């Protein structure tokens, strides 16, 4: 599919929300996971294939330390999670990327590892970045315990009781991943090695598979320790709470530049989402069952918001507002109202008076009952292209492209100090991205090229003194310093959703908005910001477990809530 913003379906011209509306940090920072998220796609495939997870190795001692292997066939290949659980003193427990030890560490292995492989991995996996890996390893990750919940669950299960419902709702995970690496990092397999496999062709499918398997390991781990402690008194996790326990994650600045450094990938993700939304909005009538489903999900989303807790004042305020707005949406979107023509378009239009959080929540809800229409939109799209120069373009055309695609950048006043308050750089500590205060910290001379808007202005200035009929090719021979930004401009012409249309070095830039956009694309929920630079989230909460992935409700887990019936069980 070509990267045009107005595809057609069955001859109907679809109207997508334009990039200038969608690609703003404030909106991207309000995205919710949809049924098109990477996790949802993985679970649908696992369910479709009736995947069976086996556990060929379980060498875990009574205290929960040792190693384990889980294997699952998917798309004709077998993948194995190799897990290591090691003692960790509290003073060494850190979610920061500079940590050097973790409660648990993992690789996703291509195939089933032999004993020799396990011994090699045992020497390297617990060291994470300090180890070296082979192309048989597809994903490298680690996770720390949620100290709050882990011991509580073990203690309860060992005494024959289920965990406290309120604690489960409030925290929602036993372990929290702090990094999930793929695509060749530290010697693991390049994505090019696996991207043509049907199961792993989609973005981040290997990573999502690894995290889903980690989740299953966390369930087994607490049940194992509880059994060791409680003997015959111990009980397993009840099905409802097991399903409600996801995997936590702590994500910081390290992820933020990804969206900037992968413009065509970002465009593809946004185009799929916006195309799906446009297709649903173009539906003239909603079937009664679709209306019923939507209204059920509205109620569930409201309850889900009630279980979403955070100490971050900004996010807490947003949750408070969206809870009220969702009630307004439910009052508006009655069955009768939705039965009128173009219900989804009317709802999206009406929602523009509400907060961005509510608007994007409704986008997710509107998409949810329309899987038959949208799930396979991107199935035959080609993988994201490497951005390229269009050498024959004249500078006159390049100027026009800048005016059309980057008016937002040209409008910024970089004379104002706050417009260049920050600089992005790579730290010496762990070669991870950081954000510095230009006027109070050293290192701005090593700035990463995330100052796209400022570079656009520099390019525009250079073009003013150039022959408009000159080609881009000859221009770049004499101005190689502008090659990066010219490539971005020309990429944006064919990939209009490829650029974040905000100044990323401005004093009011909130990197967490970039994080939330990407994490929502993963399928993450329960965003719990700890600052404007990092957040905790929950992954796979509500998703089918190893023993329920073959069930008929495997795709029904958006906006998860802990079953009310669970309260009765724990009393």
């Amino acid at each position, binding site marked *: 599919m070509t990267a045009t913003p107005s595809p057609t379906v069955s001859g109907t011209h679809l109207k997508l929300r334009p990039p200038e509306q969608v690609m703003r940090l404030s909106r991207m920072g309000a995205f919710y996971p949809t049924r098109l998220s990477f996790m949802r796609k993985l679970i649908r495939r696992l369910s479709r294939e009736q995947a069976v997870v086996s556990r060929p190795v379980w060498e875990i001692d009574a205290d929960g330390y040792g190693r384990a292997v889980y294997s699952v066939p998917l798309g004709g290949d077998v993948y194995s999670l190799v897990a290591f659980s090691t003692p960790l003193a*509290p003073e060494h*427990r*850190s*979610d*920061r990327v500079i940590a050097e030890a973790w409660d648990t560490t993992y690789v996703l292995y291509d195939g089933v590892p032999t004993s020799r492989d396990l011994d090699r991995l045992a020497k390297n996996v617990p060291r994470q970045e300090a180890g*070296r890996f082979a*192309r048989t390893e597809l994903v490298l990750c680690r996770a*720390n315990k*949620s*100290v*709050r919940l882990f011991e509580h669950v073990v203690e309860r299960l060992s005494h024959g009781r289920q965990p406290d419902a309120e604690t489960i709702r409030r925290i929602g995970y036993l372990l929290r991943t702090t990094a999930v690496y793929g*695509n*060749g*990092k*530290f*010697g*693991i*397999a*390049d*994505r*090019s*090695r696996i991207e043509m496999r049907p199961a792993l062709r989609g973005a981040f499918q290997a990573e999502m598979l690894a995290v889903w398997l980690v989740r299953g390991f966390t369930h087994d781990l607490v049940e194992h320790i509880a059994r060791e402690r409680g003997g015959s008194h111990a009980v397993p996790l009840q099905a409802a709470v097991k399903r409600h326990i996801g995997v936590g994650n*702590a994500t*910081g600045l390290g992820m933020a530049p990804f969206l900037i450094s992968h413009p065509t990938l970002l465009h593809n993700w946004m185009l799929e989402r916006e195309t799906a939304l446009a297709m649903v909005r173009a539906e003239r009538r909603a079937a009664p069952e679709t209306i019923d489903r939507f209204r059920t999900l509205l109620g569930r989303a409201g309850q889900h918001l009630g279980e979403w807790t955070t100490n971050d004042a900004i996010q807490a305020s947003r949750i408070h507002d969206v809870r009220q707005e969702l009630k307004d949406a439910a009052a508006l979107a009655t069955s009768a109202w939705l039965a009128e023509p173009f219900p989804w378009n009317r709802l999206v239009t009406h929602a523009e008076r509400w907060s961005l959080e509510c608007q994007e929540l409704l986008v997710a809800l509107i998409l949810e009952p329309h899987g038959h229409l949208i799930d396979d939109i991107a199935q035959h799209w080609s993988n994201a292209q*490497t951005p*390229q*120069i269009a*050498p024959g373009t004249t500078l006159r055309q390049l100027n026009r492209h800048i005016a059309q695609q980057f008016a937002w950048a040209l409008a910024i006043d970089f004379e104002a100090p706050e417009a260049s308050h920050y600089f992005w*750089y*790579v*730290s*010496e*500590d762990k*070669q991870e991205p*950081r*954000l*510095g*205060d230009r006027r*109070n*910290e*050293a*290192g701005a001379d*090593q700035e990463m*090229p995330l100052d796209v808007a400022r570079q656009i202005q520099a390019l525009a200035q250079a073009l003013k003194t150039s022959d408009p009929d000159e080609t*881009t*090719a*000859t221009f*770049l*021979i004499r101005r*190689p*310093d*502008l*090659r*990066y*930004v*010219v*490539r971005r401009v020309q990429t944006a012409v064919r990939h209009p959703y490829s650029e974040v249309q905000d100044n990323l070095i401005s004093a009011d830039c909130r990197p967490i908005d970039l994080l939330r956009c990407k994490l929502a694309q993963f399928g993450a929920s329960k965003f719990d910001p*700890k600052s404007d*630079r*990092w957040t905790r989230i929950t992954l796979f909460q509500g998703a089918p477990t190893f023993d329920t992935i073959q069930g008929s409700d495997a795709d029904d887990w958006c906006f998860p809530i802990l079953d009310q019936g669970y309260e009765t069980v724990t009393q």
Partner: protein
Amino acid sequence: MKPSLNEINVVVRKAAVGVGWPYGVGEDVGRAAAWLVAQGHDGVGAAIAAIQPGASVARCEPKADGWTFLHARVAAVGLSAFELLAIDPSRRVVLRNVDHPLLLIGLAGIAAVDNGGAYMLTGCSTGRVTERINVSANHATFACAKLAGETVSIERSIPSNHAPLETQAVAVVDDAVWRQALTLAARKYVPGSETSRAHGAGAGLTDND
């Protein structure tokens, strides 16, 4: 050392930028190095040798049948030679006094990947053809690039029918060369400070919760 192709791409790009090359040039050199390694050649060594400090802007003159780069510093010429041919595939680009021909082959490789075509690199010394190398997106056969210091002309050609090489071949990079690449890349890293550690994500917070 057995880095992944992605590691090679990233480290070589950072090394180029660390030496002082523009970021966009670094991106191309990184990709070219990874392409060469995937084909079984010393792409990292070629890139590191080619990006050493020196003139970074190429001089190009239009000619009747194409363009000529004088004193062709390959890293400075970069993908420009191939971009000129993209404008008019019937012409040719001549590079005089090529300094690092192996990197030039790598750049031809990624240009072929990007546009689905192929390039014929013809070496010429004192009017005599010394070597011809046909570069497709996933194939280039040559014993060694005997083109250093010579004139190389580049023309569009027909992609070869060879089956793609195993692009997952385990890349082996000389340890000393890799260390050199890492050292150059590290020039762009910023040392931590009290301020940066205090402002870092998660600073001052406990994770024992």
